[in-house]
C-alpha cells in the first residue's frame, strides 16, 4: 500500500490535551497571528501595533476604538502604542498625545484593511481549500504524491484563462470573465475523472492516470492557444504563477462559501477515508461504497479547487505539502487530518504571500514562486524518502 499506514493512536494521558487538539490549536493560533500581523507587510510601513489596533477595530465592528488618531482612550491604539513601544511609553509618561494624525491613520486603515486584508483572507481561504482538497485526494487515491493539480485542474483552469486572453476583451469584461472561464476550465478534467469513476470497474490507479493524461492534453491545448496568440503569453504566465493582488471582498466571500460547503462535505468522509486506506476490497467488506466515496471526493475537491484557482491563478504545492505536514502532527486518522490540513494550507499560503510581498518590496512576487521554493524541495524529499523505503526502508 502506498500512502500513510494506519496506526493506532494511543490514548493520551488524562492531564494532557490530545496531540491532534494541540496541533489544531497551534495552527489556529498561528493563523490568527498571521491574520493580525500580515497587514504589516507591504511597500508602506505601518507599525505593527497600529495594524493590530486597526484589525481589532474592524473585526469588532468598531467596538474596539482605533482612536490613534486623536483622543486617547482605554483599549485604543494609544493604549497599544503606549504599552508596546518605547516611544509610546515615553510619550505617555511625558503626557504627550499619540504621534499619528487623523489623516495618516485613515490612510493606514485603508491600506491595512481595504488593500491588504482581501488578498490576505484570500490566501487563508484558498490555502485551506487547496490543503483540504490535497488531503482528501491523497486519502482517496491512497497516494501521498497526489495533489489537486495532478488531476489536471490547474492546466484546465489555465486553458480557460488562456482562452480569455486570446480575445481582446475590455479590462472590465476581462476581470469578470477570467474567474468564470478559469473555473469552467478547471472543472472539465475533474468532471471527466468523476464520470470515469461513475463508470465502475476502474481502479484508483486508472482514475489517477486519467487525470494525468488529461493534464498532458490540456497542456497541449494551452501551448496551441499560446502559439495562436503569443501576445497573451505574459498574461497567462503571470496567471500560471498565481497572484492574490487583485483580490476583493467579493472574491473572499465566494471562496469562503466554497470552502465551508466543500470542507464540510469532505469532513463528513473522514471515517470512510480511513477505511479506504485498507483498500477498496476491505472497504467494501465493511460496507463502505468505495466508488461512491471516490466519486464524491473527486467532485467536491474539483469544485473547491476550481473555485480557489479561479481567483488566485495556479498556486502549486499547497495541496501537496500541507497533508504531509498535517499527518506529521496528527497521524494518519483522516478525521483529524482534514481539519488540521485546512489550517496548515491556510498558514502555508499566508506565509508565502507575506514572503511574496516583502522579499523584493515594493514589487510583489507571484505567490506561486515562494510556494514552489518551499514545496519543490519538500516534494523531492518525499520522492527520495519513498524510494528509500521501497528498497528496504520501513513501511
Amino acid at each position: 500500500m502506498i500512502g500513510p499506514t494506519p496506526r493506532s493512536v494511543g490514548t493520551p494521558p488524562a492531564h494532557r490535551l490530545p496531540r491532534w487538539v494541540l496541533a489544531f490549536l497551534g495552527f489556529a493560533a498561528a493563523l490568527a497571528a498571521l491574520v493580525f500581523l500580515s497587514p504589516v507587510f507591504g511597500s508602506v510601513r505601518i507599525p505593527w501595533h497600529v495594524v493590530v489596533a486597526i484589525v481589532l477595530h474592524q473585526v469588532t465592528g468598531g467596538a474596539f476604538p482605533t482612536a490613534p488618531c486623536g483622543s486617547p482612550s482605554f483599549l485604543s491604539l494609544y493604549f497599544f502604542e503606549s504599552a508596546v513601544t518605547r516611544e509610546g511609553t515615553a510619550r505617555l509618561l511625558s503626557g504627550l498625545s499619540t504621534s499619528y494624525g487623523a489623516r495618516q491613520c485613515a490612510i493606514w486603515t485603508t491600506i491595512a484593511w481595504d488593500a491588504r486584508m482581501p488578498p490576505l483572507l484570500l490566501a487563508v481561504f484558498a490555502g485551506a481549500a487547496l490543503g483540504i482538497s490535497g488531503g482528501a485526494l491523497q486519502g482517496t487515491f491512497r497516494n501521498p504524491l497526489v495533489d489537486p493539480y495532478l488531476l489536471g485542474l490547474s492546466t484546465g483552469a489555465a486553458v480557460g484563462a488562456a482562452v480569455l486572453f486570446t480575445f481582446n476583451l475590455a479590462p472590465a469584461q476581462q476581470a469578470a470573465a477570467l474567474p468564470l472561464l478559469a473555473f469552467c476550465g478547471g472543472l472539465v478534467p475533474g468532471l471527466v475523472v468523476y464520470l470515469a469513476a461513475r463508470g465502475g470497474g476502474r481502479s484508483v490507479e486508472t482514475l489517477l492516470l486519467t487525470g494525468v493524461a488529461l493534464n498532458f492534453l490540456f497542456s497541449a491545448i494551452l501551448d496551441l492557444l499560446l502559439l495562436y496568440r503569443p501576445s497573451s503569453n505574459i498574461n497567462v504566465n503571470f496567471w500560471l504563477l498565481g497572484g492574490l493582488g487583485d483580490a476583493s471582498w467579493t472574491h473572499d466571500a465566494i471562496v469562503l462559501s466554497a470552502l465551508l460547503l466543500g470542507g464540510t462535505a469532505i469532513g463528513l468522509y473522514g471515517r470512510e477515508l480511513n477505511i479506504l486506506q485498507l483498500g477498496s476490497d476491505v472497504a467494501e467488506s465493511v460496507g463502505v461504497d468505495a466508488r461512491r466515496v471516490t466519486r464524491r471526493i473527486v467532485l467536491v475537491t474539483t469544485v473547491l479547487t476550481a473555485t480557489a484557482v479561479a481567483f488566485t491563478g495556479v498556486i502549486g504545492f499547497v495541496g501537496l505539502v500541507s497533508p504531509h505536514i498535517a499527518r506529521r502532527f496528527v497521524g494518519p486518522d483522516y478525521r483529524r487530518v482534514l481539519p488540521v490540513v485546512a489550517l496548515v494550507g491556510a498558514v502555508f499560503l499566508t506565509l508565502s504571500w507575506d514572503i511574496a510581498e516583502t522579499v523584493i518590496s515594493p514589487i510583489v512576487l507571484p505567490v506561486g514562486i515562494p510556494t514552489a521554493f518551499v514545496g519543490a524541495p519538500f516534494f523531492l524529499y518525499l520522492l527520495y524518502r519513498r524510494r528509500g523505503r521501497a528498497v528496504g526502508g520501513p513501511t
Partner: protein
Amino acid sequence: MSLNPSSAGPRNVSGSVFLVAILITAGVAVAATAGYYTLFPAAVGGPPGPHVTVLDDSDRTVTAPVNATRIVVLAPNVMDLVYRLNLRDRVVGIGCTTGIAGGMLNEYTPNQTTDWNLTPAMCITDFPTLDTETIANLSTQLVLASTLTYASDVATLTDTFHIPVVILAPADLGGIITDVRLLAELFPVVGTTALSLEAHLGAILNNASDLVTSLSYNDTPAPSVLLTYYFYEDGYGAYGQNSFGESLVALAGGNSISSNLTFEYADLNATVVLSDQPNVILYGTSWNDEWIVDGQDPGAWTSSAPYWSQLNGTKIPVDVTLITEPDASMIFYLPWLEHWFYPTIVPAPLA
C-alpha cells in the same frame, strides 16, 4: 484510529445528511459573507471641495477634485504636459521602473530630470506592478496615468483608495491638444497658460496641414520614411496602422514604409526595409543603453543594425522620446521633421 466495524458500525454518508450539511454550511457562508460586508470601512476620502467630472482618453468618466494639489504622474509624456502647464509643484510622485530596469533614468532623460526637477525620492515603482499603497500614503488626490497602467491597478486606486485616475493616452497628435483641454478642466488654475499652449500647438499642426496640402497641390513627391525606435537582429521596431507614429510622419508630409503593418507597434522585417530603401530614416537614440534599450545606442545603430550600411537614405538620429511619447514636445518637433523631409522647401526651424 478506530477501524473496528463493530465499535462504530460501517456506514456510508447518506444523500440526505450530505444535503443537510450543505444547507447548514451554505447558511453559515451567507451569514459570514454578510458579516464581511457590514465590516466595510469608510475608505480614505478626498478632501472636501469642488469637483469636476471629465471624460478621459479611455472614455472613462472621472470625477476629480478641482485644482488638485497632490498629483502623481505615471508617464513621461503626461509629465511633459503637466510641466508645460506650470503644474510641476503639485506633483508628489512619478512612475518609475524599478532599480532592476534602471529606475528613473529608463523613463526620463537626464535633460527631463533636470528641467522638471525630478528626484529619485519621487519615484513610485510602476513595473512590473504599480505600488498603489505608496500612492495612497502620499495623500494623493489625483493620478494622471497612461494606457500602460494596468487596468487592475487603476481599479485598486479608484475602488480601494478612492483616488481618481485620469488616463491621458492620445491616439494621434490632435489628441495631445485634447489632453491640454482635459488638464485645463481639471486645473482651471492654469488659465491662460493652457489656452496659450493649445493655440501654439494648434498653429503648428495647422501649418503642417497647410504644408502637406501645398506639396500635394504642387505634385511634390512625398519621401518614403522609416521611423524606428529600436532594432533587432532581423528587423526594426516601427509604427503600424492608426499609430501616432504614423500620424507624425503623415503630418510632416512623409510616407511611412511601415504604415501597412497591422499592429500599432510592429516589427518591420529588415529585408523589407532594404528593399524599400526609404528616403529618410529617423532612428531613436537613447540616454541609457544598459538594459532594455540596447538598440537605441547611437553607436550600436551604425555597427549592428541590419543592412544599415546598405540603406542609402538620409539617416537622422533623434531623441527617442520625441518619436515615442505623444506629448507637446513631439508637436514642437514637427517642424524639424518637415525640414528633414523637404530640406530644400522647409527651412530648419529656429532653435
